[in-house]
């Protein structure tokens, strides 16, 4: 596919960021196209995370701008950026430790729900539902059966509240996502009790739950052994196959080479290379930048 046939999703346009006298990012420009996996790599301290933070609105650039899907991202609050369609994971996992895995993902699905405080309190916004979605009448106990019939009748006559429907849809979708990342069996465990690898997967599921146009993964393979990394590669490819655009920040060269469509390389806050994995691998500047890091990168 040539660049011409693709549309730009995220546009980093001549971004410079200074902290006092230190130039953290120096005139960095690149695009992320819809449907691709872009790798952002560079040695330690190259400005990857800084760049990431500018893209997700944490820092405001000194000059230049970041546009997402035609809208300016800079200056917006984190939850607004999420609503625009950017989701991220954290390098040092930040789940909601006391909530179950399912609840963690449901927080993500809530991001697209319309019901808020008033809707949850009074549940007056009613939606007609198809017969198969009505509450079941399945109990043998006569008394319970009667209450179930009353509820079914109520739902048939007045419809179900949008809150109930969204809550159900959110739970269903969250379970699907947990299955997708392969930790469905952990749904009712508290996030903090999950093994490390499952926590990383849960973070990805939670980010996907917000229905992002762009999924940003910040060093998702940190602390993984080779077998786990291989599983993660598979997962990222499957995410792309679902039509998501993925930004992958990674230290591990091999992982990046194996999964990305294009790679942007940063060093000392500057973009030193951009291109397909093969091009980048053979770029002398990149080799020079990574020379001292090869042992670390493998």
């Amino acid at each position, binding site marked *: 596919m040539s660049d011409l046939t693709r549309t730009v999703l995220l546009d980093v346009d001549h971004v410079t960021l200074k902290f006092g006298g230190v130039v953290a990012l120096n005139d960095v420009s690149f695009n992320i196209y819809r449907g691709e996996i872009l790798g952002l790599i560079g040695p330690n301290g190259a400005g990857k995370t800084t760049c990431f933070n500018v893209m*997700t609105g944490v820092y405001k650039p000194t000059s230049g701008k970041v546009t997402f899907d035609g809208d300016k991202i800079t200056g917006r*609050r*984190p*939850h607004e*950026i*999420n*609503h625009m369609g950017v*989701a*991220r994971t*954290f390098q040092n996992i*930040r*789940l*909601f*430790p*006391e*909530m*179950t895995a*399912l*609840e963690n993902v*449901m*927080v*993500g699905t*809530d*991001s*697209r*729900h319309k*019901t*808020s*405080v008033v809707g*949850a*309190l009074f*549940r007056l916004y009613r939606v007609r539902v198809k017969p198969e979605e009505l509450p079941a009448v399945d109990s043998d*106990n006569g*008394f*319970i059966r009667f209450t179930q019939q009353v509820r079914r009748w109520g739902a048939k006559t007045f419809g179900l509240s949008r*809150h109930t429907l*969204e*809550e159900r849809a*959110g739970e269903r979708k969250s379970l699907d996502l947990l299955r997708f990342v392969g930790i469905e069996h952990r749904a*009712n*465990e*508290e996030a*903090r009790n999950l093994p490390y690898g499952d926590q990383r997967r849960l973070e990805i599921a*939670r*980010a996907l739950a*917000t229905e992002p146009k762009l999924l940003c993964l910040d060093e998702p393979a940190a602390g993984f052994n080779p077998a786990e990394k291989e599983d993660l590669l598979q997962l990222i490819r499957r995410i792309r196959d679902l039509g998501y655009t993925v930004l992958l920040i990674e230290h591990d060269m091999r992982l990046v080479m194996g999964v990305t469509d294009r790679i942007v390389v940063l060093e000392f806050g500057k973009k030193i290379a951009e291109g397909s994995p093969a091009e980048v691998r053979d770029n002398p500047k990149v080799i020079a930048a990574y020379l001292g890091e090869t042992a670390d990168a493998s």
Partner: protein
Amino acid sequence: MTTDSKVERDPKVERKRVSIGDRWRALPKWQRWLGFAAFVAFLYYLPLLGIPGLTWLRTDYIANGNNWAGVLFTCAVYVLIALGLNVVIGLAGLLDLGYVGFYAVGAYSVALFGSRQSPVVQAIQDKFGLSQEWAMLWAVCIIIALVLAMISGVLLGWPTLRLRGDYLAIVTLGFGEIIQRVVRNSVSWSGGPAGIAAIPGPEGAPSADNKVFGLLDAKPWYWLALSVVLLIVFLVRRLENSRVGRAWLAVREDEDAAAVMGVYPFKFKLWAFAIGAALGGLSGLLFASRAGFIEPNQFNAQLSILFVAMVVVGGAGNMAGVAVGAFLLAYLPERFRDFAEWRFLVFGLALVIVMLIRPQGLFPSRRRARELQDRREEVPAGV
């Protein structure tokens, strides 16, 4: 949602942890409903109950009279306060030390708009040429009280909720104290230190003709307050088990991560604050309607601390816990009136002791309990 996970847990751990709460949760749903219904029926029957020593409480209204129902009414109002404050402290994790302010707003709303003796009503009478008998309907006063309390909550929360939590604590503490002074100083519209009498109840202004909600028989008042409490329990549960409850918990656990996941922390904190304020206003309204007369001294800042104590001692985050806490802190002082001098000293001690020995409160919510225990495990061995 946590119940399902128990299946996979180690049976040894399981056996150790079987508490009344766990047994209760293990019952089929219809049995739980039945148990709950029986408990509610018992609550409604409570004022008719006579247990010597427990339910005989002195009253100042009638010589040798029993004020059991009156005390129950106070307990119900305090439970309502505890439920409201629990939304703020227990669910949203914000420390509000000026809850008495909202209580006062509610009480003064019904007093200023519902009583024929209030300067506000009299001004309206003059302005629109209404009769001397005119005053706002009690039902309208409820709406006014809720709206005014919510507005004051939003006005107070707006500048402070974006800042660190301890600023909120001090600003609310100041608010609780200041509102009392404002009322006392503003003689022209609030009646000032003299207070306001003839505050209406559901049947209108207090008079000997009132059949149900009179001055002497407190039982109907208790039943009214209890019904309000049950309604509020129902509504707050709806919030807890919805995206709102999840958002509060998420913000409490990791505000930045919650924001990145699309939760706007400020919005949900402000909602918690406004809901808490509205419930505080509602309880103030009930209190004022029953008392028929209020004055600024009834809304001192110490009362706020008492309210916080109810929630913290009971177990922040757990509605049943805070209700028990409120009941105890309302009932015990009435039972031991001879020690009134020591009352607030004991509350202060209770707060300190609970925090130092049982920081989750007497009846911790399961989730909160784990949160606190967990922090202790994180302490490095050397400290």
